């Protein structure tokens, strides 16, 4: 690792964020949906007339809340902190922008997060120790706090895709925070919030199926039937609303980003960025399957519904959620903050200056004063390409450029630099910002990597580490 610029061989630093973030989203969205599920289930149990069934429900909810506490309180929080570490190392510029622009938002989020952590612990440890109604109120406080974290974080995540014209007008002036609320309630805020709320409710139902599927069908048929069917109902609103919300969300996304969704319809050629389309297909298939399995296997036949069925539904839900998050991230390309900052951390208005003065002279994160073209090229590669490409693993340069000689590689880099309107890469790749010397340096570096020194006649001199 070469701090402050993070190079992860094979996997790529972007995937480090991706893996932690997808894992975190699966749990944190359960924390929000499950936060609502627990007090609603408890309230339902309190209204059950049959004392035996009521007691069984309460026992089941208590057991579920223990599972909930461990999963969200341990894995959710640890992975949340992990995201901060990862984005700080991979995207220091973007992280800095988010912190400076939304400092008040982050502060609010942390307050609600602390309330969340406290109340979930109180909720679990006070089962049968405090009055039932008070216990239920603790559950409602938790539900409110966890919903508040979603309401806040959604604004920041949606901002990254669609910061809005008002914020973009002041971006770079030092007055960005003055447009906090317009940046927060950006064009995709509401569809995104409602979509995430639906996903949270679905995940609450799916995770609850894990607990309810373990009830003994022979000994407690009434409990199993009622809890399994009630958990399945949590999926219903989502699957009615999500198709419409997706269309709304899609309509609010800029047309340049909408186009990314269609790139994979007719090709899978390397370098054509067809992954968003392919991920969308995965979401459709897995979501449709969850509906089918939840209805036919769980709702219609709750007594036959066992843990392995519940695990299969959970796995599908996790795949759908992961594919959804991955697609959302990819939909931002070529930006990390829409129309303001490219995915390699270069600010859109800075491209012209970098083209005049050179990339290394303007980069705060990679340094290189070497006389070696190869070495400078490596530094430029780390700064401009490394957040999306690796040499041999994810989006591998050696494979993408294989068969090209130095002239061809140079033409490719020049095309990325010129970033003309008809360039096919313009839709999903940032321009290569830099002077003619930078273009030559990057070309030299890539040529040595793609065509080994024996054939290219060049010997790597040194790396770009400081």
């Amino acid at each position, binding site marked *: 690792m070469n701090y402050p610029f993070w190079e992860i061989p094979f996997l790529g630093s972007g995937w480090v964020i991706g893996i932690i973030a997808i894992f975190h989203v699966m749990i944190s969205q359960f924390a929000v949906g499950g936060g609502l599920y627990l007090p609603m289930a408890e309230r339902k149990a309190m209204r059950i007339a049959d004392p035996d069934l009521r007691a069984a429900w309460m026992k089941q909810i208590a057991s579920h809340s223990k599972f909930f506490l461990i999963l969200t309180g341990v894995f959710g929080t640890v992975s949340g902190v992990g995201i901060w570490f990862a984005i700080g190392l991979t995207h220091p510029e973007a992280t800095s922008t988010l912190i400076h622009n939304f400092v008040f938002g982050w502060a609010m989020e942390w307050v609600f997060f602390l309330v969340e952590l406290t109340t979930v612990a109180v909720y679990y440890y006070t089962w049968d120790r405090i009055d039932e109604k008070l216990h239920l109120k603790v559950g409602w406080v938790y539900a409110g706090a966890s919903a508040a974290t979603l309401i806040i974080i959604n604004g920041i995540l949606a901002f990254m895709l669609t910061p809005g014209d008002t914020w973009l007008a002041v971006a770079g002036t030092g007055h960005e925070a003055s447009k906090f609320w317009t940046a927060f309630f950006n064009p995709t805020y509401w569809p995104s919030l409602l979509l995430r709320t639906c996903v949270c409710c679905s995940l609450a139902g799916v995770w609850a199926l894990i607990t309810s599927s373990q009830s003994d069908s022979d000994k407690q048929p009434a409990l199993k039937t009622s809890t399994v069917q009630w958990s399945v109902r949590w999926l219903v609103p989502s699957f009615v609303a999500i198709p419409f919300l997706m269309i709304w969300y899609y309509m609010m996304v800029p047309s340049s980003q909408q186009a990314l969704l269609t790139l994979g319809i*007719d*090709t*899978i050629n390397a370098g054509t960025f067809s992954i968003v389309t392919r991920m969308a297909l995965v979401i459709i298939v897995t979501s449709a399957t969850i509906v089918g399995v939840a209805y036919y*296997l769980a709702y219609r036949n709750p007594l036959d519904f066992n843990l392995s069925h519940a695990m*299969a539904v959970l796995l599908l839900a996790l*795949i759908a959620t992961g594919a959804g998050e991955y697609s959302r991230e990819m939909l931002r390309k070529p930006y990390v903050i829409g129309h303001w900052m490219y995915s390699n951390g270069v600010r859109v208005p800075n491209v012209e200056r970098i083209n005049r003065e050179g990339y290394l002279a303007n980069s705060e994160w990679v340094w290189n004063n070497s006389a070696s073209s190869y070495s400078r090229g490596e530094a430029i590669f780390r700064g401009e390409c490394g957040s999306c490409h690796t040499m041999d693993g994810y989006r591998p340069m050696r494979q993408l450029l294989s068969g090209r000689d130095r002239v061809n590689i140079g033409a490719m880099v020049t095309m990325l630099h010129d970033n003309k309107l008809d360039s096919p890469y313009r839709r999903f790749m940032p321009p290569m910002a830099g002077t003619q010397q930078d273009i030559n340096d990057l070309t030299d570096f890539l040529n040595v990597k793609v065509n080994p020194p024996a054939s290219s006649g060049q010997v790597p001199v040194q790396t770009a580490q400081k």
Partner: protein
Amino acid sequence: MTSKTITSNVYDWVDERLGLSEIAAFARHKSVPVHAQSFWYYWGGISLFLFLVQCFTGVLLLVYYRPGADAFESVRQITFVMHFGWLIRSAHSWSANLMIFAILVHMFSVFFMKAYRKPREFGWLSGMALLGIASVFGFSGYLLPMDELSYFATKVGLEIPMAIPWIGPIIANMLRGGPEVSEFTVQRFFALHVVVLPALFLPLLGFHLWLVQRHGNALPPSEEAKPARECKSMPFMPNFLRKDLAMWLISLNILALLASVFPWSLGKQYDALAPAPMGIHPEWYFMSPFEMLKILGAFLPGAIGEITGILLFTLGIVLWILIPFYDANKESGKRARIAHYFGLLAIVALLSTTLIGYWTIR
């Protein structure tokens, strides 16, 4: 007239002519054993589902595929030009591989549950024939894109029958349509893939499924030993069918995931004059025999090694096919144990040679 009445009238009309009620009554009375190994009962159904996917996607590919000199260009268009052509092709290729995997799992589960014993010998034999045809489906389909890898892999594959004395070259030339793999070979493989093999496979599959219906699911020896009152079962309709369909859905999801995340790509167009690229190897389900021949060739170089290898491999397959006649019923005793060890040996040999094969081509 309400829609319910219309449906009922239509059902009665069809029932009167086709006897649907009798089929439904039969399905309701049919039951499936429930025990710790019930999971393995689903693999036959999964194989069937994947075959149906291949029929569906195969027909769609057939619309645009052009065998012969245009083969590569047509596959290139399907993969890189036509809307969702890549998806259909990926689903076809992945389902083919998954089907062979599912058939192998099904075969070994049948073997270890002793489901080949009396009266299920024909079920075993027809199943083995289906696996054999599925392998040829795979081999013939692999060449059809005519890219560099498929061309050279087929070339190497067709050199194996060449080692058989006298008739080997005749068979190889007949398959190739000449002394070299060429567009004539593609024509022949195409005819084999879409006409000859389906014509053999479909009736055999029907026979196999009829046998499954006739004899029902076999109990593994551990369950057979239990008293009847301790044995559990579930109705085929709707309980088992529902679970079977759920497994189909899971298979569909795995297939969709693989086809979307790892779409089946296309290599460079073949060049018969170019040297074979590094790392040419057969598909994974042929890797084991390929590696066994390689290992034997190291000890017995030349034609002797190849012939010995083919003979040994053929002997192993023949013994495997004839196992129902060796371990014929539950009173087999020592023979049952030997058959069991034979199965374990087969798994170890297949896995180890496949792994060695992939390790050595790295």
